[in-house]
């Protein structure tokens, strides 16, 4: 689900651009550390593969078919950091060349699919693969789609897009089916890939720190609770998110107030530009900090 430009309000896309870009810098650093140079073409070609894989239709029930989304598959094959970079490149090309998703909302899309979606697809594999590998892979596929969709809905709701209760339930059901299909496709594809060459997939790492387990459990709990609350009180989320977004959310965008300027329009545009410059600065700063630390 790629959010085009024009859907999200300025504080929402601004906040997610600020959030996504430094996270992306971290992912790129980690990916670069974990891979040797020959993997650069590999990552690009894997992105092209996920793109092209959407042409292969998987029959699901009579008359309908689904296709791979790919976040979980990439995370299992390449590791989460590299998968984030590849998913981000896919989103960038889709936004630029295929008019699928916006430019200002790219941060939100990257956060939903390339960061949250990839992590949600990878954590079950990392944590449960020793106990039951197949269900871990399946769960990864399911969660990656569900988490991405949940974030997209939250962003739209926070931008004041009305979500009537029935429509919300309907689209949630739709996404749940889509998530189950993605889980099944991921599992089948991983199985078929392993039969061809078992070295393509990264073995799940042996040691798992207990902290990671707790984080994963907490994240899962939060996600389930969020979905339950959302399905029960959709008006509640709107009330929570739309009119009274916390003050700090506006603060990075200079709160739409640049002193000494009369026109409110000019003020907002200036605030928008200031926000963008701030994003750019934050990314530069984060990049420097990370590179210094890893050097």
């Amino acid at each position: 689900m790629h959010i085009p430009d024009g859907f999200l309000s300025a504080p929402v896309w601004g906040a997610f651009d600020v959030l996504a870009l430094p996270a992306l810098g971290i992912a790129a650093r980690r990916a670069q550390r974990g891979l040797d140079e020959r993997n650069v073409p590999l990552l690009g070609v894997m992105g092209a593969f996920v793109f092209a894989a959407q042409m292969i239709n998987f029959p699901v029930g009579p008359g309908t078919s689904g296709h791979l989304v790919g976040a979980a598959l990439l995370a299992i094959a390449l590791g989460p950091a590299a998968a984030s970079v590849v998913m981000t490149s896919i989103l960038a090309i889709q936004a630029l060349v295929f008019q699928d998703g916006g430019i200002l909302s790219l941060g939100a899309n990257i956060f939903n699919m390339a960061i949250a979606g990839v992590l949600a697809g990878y954590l079950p594999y990392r944590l449960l693969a020793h106990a039951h590998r197949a269900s871990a892979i399946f769960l990864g596929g399911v969660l990656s789609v569900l988490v991405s969709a949940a974030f997209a809905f939250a962003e739209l709701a926070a931008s004041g897009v009305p979500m009537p209760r029935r429509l919300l339930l309907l689209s949630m059901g739709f996404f749940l089916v889509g998530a189950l299909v993605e889980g099944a496709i991921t599992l089948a594809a991983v199985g078929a890939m392993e039969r061809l060459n078992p070295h393509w997939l990264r073995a799940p790492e042996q040691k798992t720190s207990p902290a990671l387990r707790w984080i994963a459990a907490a994240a899962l709990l939060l996600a389930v609770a969020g979905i339950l609350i959302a399905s029960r009180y959709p008006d509640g989320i709107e009330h929570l998110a739309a009119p009274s977004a916390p003050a700090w959310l506006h603060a990075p965008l200079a709160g739409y107030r640049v002193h000494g300027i009369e026109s409110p329009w000019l003020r907002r545009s200036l605030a928008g530009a200031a926000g963008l410059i701030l994003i750019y600065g934050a990314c530069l700063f984060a990049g420097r900090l990370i590179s210094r630390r890893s050097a």
Partner: protein
Amino acid sequence: MRYAAIEQWSRQQSVLHRRDARAKIGALLAFLIAVSTTAPASRIAFAGYALLLAAAIAAARLPFPALVRRAALVLPVAAGFALVLWFSDERARAVALLEKSFLSAVATLLLVATTPMPELLRALEILHLPRLLVLVIHFLYRYLFVISGQARRMRLAASSRGRLQFRSAAGALAVLFARSWERASGIYRAMLARGFSGQFPALAPPRWRAADAAFFIAAVLASVAVRVAL
């Protein structure tokens, strides 16, 4: 093929094509921010934005109908949400959603239709996007069409043999993965043999001229003017 059009457009010659990619990226962001923050009710402002874009398309000497048709790809999604808004009795916002998403799509398309992808990526690298990410986008764009072609041929072959089963679709996916993997290692060896040092050499290093600064400032001023005055 549809995507080939952008590649062709971006190699043409015009005033807009000659501008530095950084100036065009900056202009695009200014325009998108102006559109994004425009109040839904200000109809005339949206007409103003459309005029700005029309002028830019004319200056770039791009085919107007084809460009508009491509940008209209965004409309089905927008129309779905616009319907929801319309039936929630927010008519002005419903129309504004369509206008905003369409205008933004045209503007984005203008950037990629006047800037060859290697130039655009080079500009993003100069603007300090992570180098790995820029390289991966570069490879993705180059091999997208090769591997898509492969997938299309596989789909054609499968559909001429009959309906694809779930398991055999998974098999096809794995074969596509295998071929992509092999292609990637072949590409890497070929690049090493030609002296690849981890960076794409730019044919002509980008140069920021006075005209680029003038274009950037004019685009920002025009966007802000429409946003403020109309």
